[in-house]
């Protein structure tokens, strides 16, 4: 597991390496052009201007060591360290609420909001998914069961961010129940801030739950029904253990490990979707920052966010893996 974690990080950084170099040079070129414009340097013709830019660029990239090959070990090491500590310099377009334009500050300001939304929605979806899935599994073939399957297929086909747009259309524009923009109005120091935040969080949260609880319930139902057809369940039923108890305690307990694996995968993919959903709602988290940074081509922010979302992604997988060992007594022994 740790091996996978480390390898992933390493691959990410190797993939990032040349990209980062190229992007840094690109950013530097913009910087040089900006400086030329600000100092209103005059050139005879465009070639002279170009050669000035190139000269300046070469000089600067030498100081930063950007002219070397990206794959030299020392550089690779330096790169990993600098990305891991988020030492990525300053953003061109964004600042924190307090005015700092350091990439690390900006990202750390946004991450808690994303985590708040993502974990809350995941928890809600887990609870709803497990109970709905179990309930439906107990009534296999019923009307509810079919409805749930159809719902799961449909919610799988719709992009979650599109559902988000529809939710805004319905609840904000037509019904005026929730605000269309999820950025809280009051400042963090206000006493009503928490309430305001929760009020603005409602619509994104509902959307994230709606798009994913169907497939959750479907996964739970699928594995549970497989377990319920096993011999030992029949044996338990003949002893006279109540149907309800078999379903919730024996069935769920045994279906737990495969459910955990399946869910880890679906979580990982829904994380990407929830990032985009955030951007649609203007929820002041990483997703919106991502969206804006791509629009403005703010490279340091994009790289920082890629790294952080990789970490969050891996932690999510890691947690589900741990829960797997907790759920499956066979793994504990080895």
């Amino acid at each position: 597991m740790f091996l996978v974690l480390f390898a992933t990080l390493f691959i990410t950084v190797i993939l990032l390496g040349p990209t980062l170099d190229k992007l840094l040079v690109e950013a530097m070129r913009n910087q040089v052009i900006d400086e030329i414009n600000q100092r209103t340097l005059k050139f005879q013709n465009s070639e002279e201007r170009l050669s000035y830019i190139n000269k300046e660029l070469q000089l600067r990239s030498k100081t930063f060591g950007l002219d070397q090959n990206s794959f030299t070990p020392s550089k690779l090491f330096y790169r990993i360290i600098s990305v891991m500590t988020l030492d990525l310099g300053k953003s061109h377009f964004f600042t924190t609420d307090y005015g700092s334009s350091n990439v690390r500050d900006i990202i750390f300001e946004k991450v808690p909001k994303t985590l708040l939304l993502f974990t809350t929605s995941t928890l809600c979806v887990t609870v709803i998914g497990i109970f709905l899935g179990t309930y439906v599994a107990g009534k296999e073939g019923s009307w509810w069961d079919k409805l749930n399957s159809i719902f799961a297929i449909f919610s799988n086909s719709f992009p979650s961010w599109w559902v988000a747009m529809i939710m805004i259309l319905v609840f904000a524009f037509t019904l005026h129940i929730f605000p269309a923009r999820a950025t809280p109005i009051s400042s963090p120091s206000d006493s009503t801030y928490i309430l305001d935040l929760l009020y603005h969080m409602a619509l994104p949260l509902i959307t994230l739950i709606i798009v994913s609880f169907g497939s959750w319930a479907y996964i739970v139902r699928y594995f549970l029904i497989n377990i319920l057809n096993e011999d030992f369940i029949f044996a338990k039923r003949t002893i006279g253990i109540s149907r309800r108890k078999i379903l919730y305690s024996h069935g769920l307990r045994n279906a737990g490990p495969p459910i955990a694996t399946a869910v880890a995968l679906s979580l990982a993919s829904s994380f990407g979707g929830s990032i985009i959903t955030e951007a649609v709602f203007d929820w002041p988290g990483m997703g919106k920052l991502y969206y804006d940074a791509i629009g403005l081509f703010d490279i340091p922010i994009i790289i920082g966010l890629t790294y952080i979302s990789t970490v969050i992604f891996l932690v999510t997988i890691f947690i589900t893996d741990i829960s797997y060992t907790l759920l499956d007594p066979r793994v504990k022994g080895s």
Partner: protein
Amino acid sequence: MQKKLLIDLLRSRRGFIGISIIVFLLLVSAIAPLFIPIKSYILWNDPDYWINNPKTAAPFWTNIFGSKEFEHISLKKNDAKIVSESSDGIKIVNYEFKINMQSGSFPDDFMFLYTAKYGNIPPVLQIDINRPDNNNFTVYYSSLPSSSNINTTFSDRIFSTNKNVKEAMFQYQSLFKYPIANYEPQVLLFSDTDKPSVLKGTYQISEKFFLFDNSSIVDDIGLILGGKVFGIMGTDDLRRDLIVGIIWGTPIALFIGLTVAIFSISIGLIYGVIAGYRGKRTDETMMRINDIFYALPTLPLLILLSITFGRSIFLIIGFLMFFSWMGTAKVIRSIALQIRNFQYVEAAKLMGQSDLKVIFKHIIPQLLPLTFASVAISVPGAILGEAALSFIGLGDPSLPTWGQLLHDANTADAAPRGIWWWIVPPGMMIALTGLAFFLIGNTLDSIANPLRNKNKK
């Protein structure tokens, strides 16, 4: 066997629904190149091409349900009554358009189009509107730009936002019983003088050219009153006809989905079979590599890759392929592990057939039906992936895809503004395509999975 698969597929209800949707999508794809000008596809992002359409107009059929909104009017040279007279060497050409105004709402904007050829002395253009209440408004009176060329062709359009038009309106304040400063020209021109509501009746709009020499001629003329409703799907903020975008999006989406699915599944199939067949160390190593790929966060890396390498549709297809073969590899490997121990495979091996031959002749054919199922199942993922990339602004800028329609809608705040016709259809198309392939894949999977069928045989 493939034929049997198709028949089985059509027999099941879900498969039939899926196939019908696909047939429908293929028909739409066929309509695109046959009936829609290819220019609309190439110039999708060129605002000039779409300028004759109304801005942000709802689909026309909304008029059936709600109040009657103003329908788009576009009049050409043939629609005009031409009266020309000449006196003292000045030729006056008058193009008169008749408009019967019966709708309950005002036009969204208006445009006067003209193209004129002239020499040294530029012609003068005067635009008058004669209203049903017999008021006559002169909204524009100005000469065309002069030029030193002997033979100039000048083409222009006068918008309702034109400064001259706005200023010309002010001289008619005395006619109106309410302050007109708050209203746009397109409202005032068609409005009752007592209250700001539509004055129904026949309007005569004339574009009068004063030509000062013989060589001057008026080439083309036109009048556009921007509708509040237009076309089957309405238009967006850039005046693009959305039905065109949706229809062109269909073949592109199918192309992306199928290419990514077929190639990534093929990679997964070969990778999985090799791992499963060889077993032992090879299997172990290959599966570890697979695990690592599995653990890569797809979306952030996709974003990074398309920022680095570019946004061409083929690159995007490549990236999506790169990130979607792992699941298949895992499933195929577990099945190949079992097939490898089937007796006929062992017999083939004992006969001295090479590994390659065993894999391609005996194992892969067994897995083909399942592969078809996987291809169908992974199409929606590819389409959703491309849509997501397009949506965050990293799509191929030269193509109209559904994701890009939604991206444009999101940047224009279509949802909070309630422009539903910009949001609902593209998403529905994405979902419909996804659903079709998902249904087919699901059915194929239950028909064709060799391990599941083993007990029945």
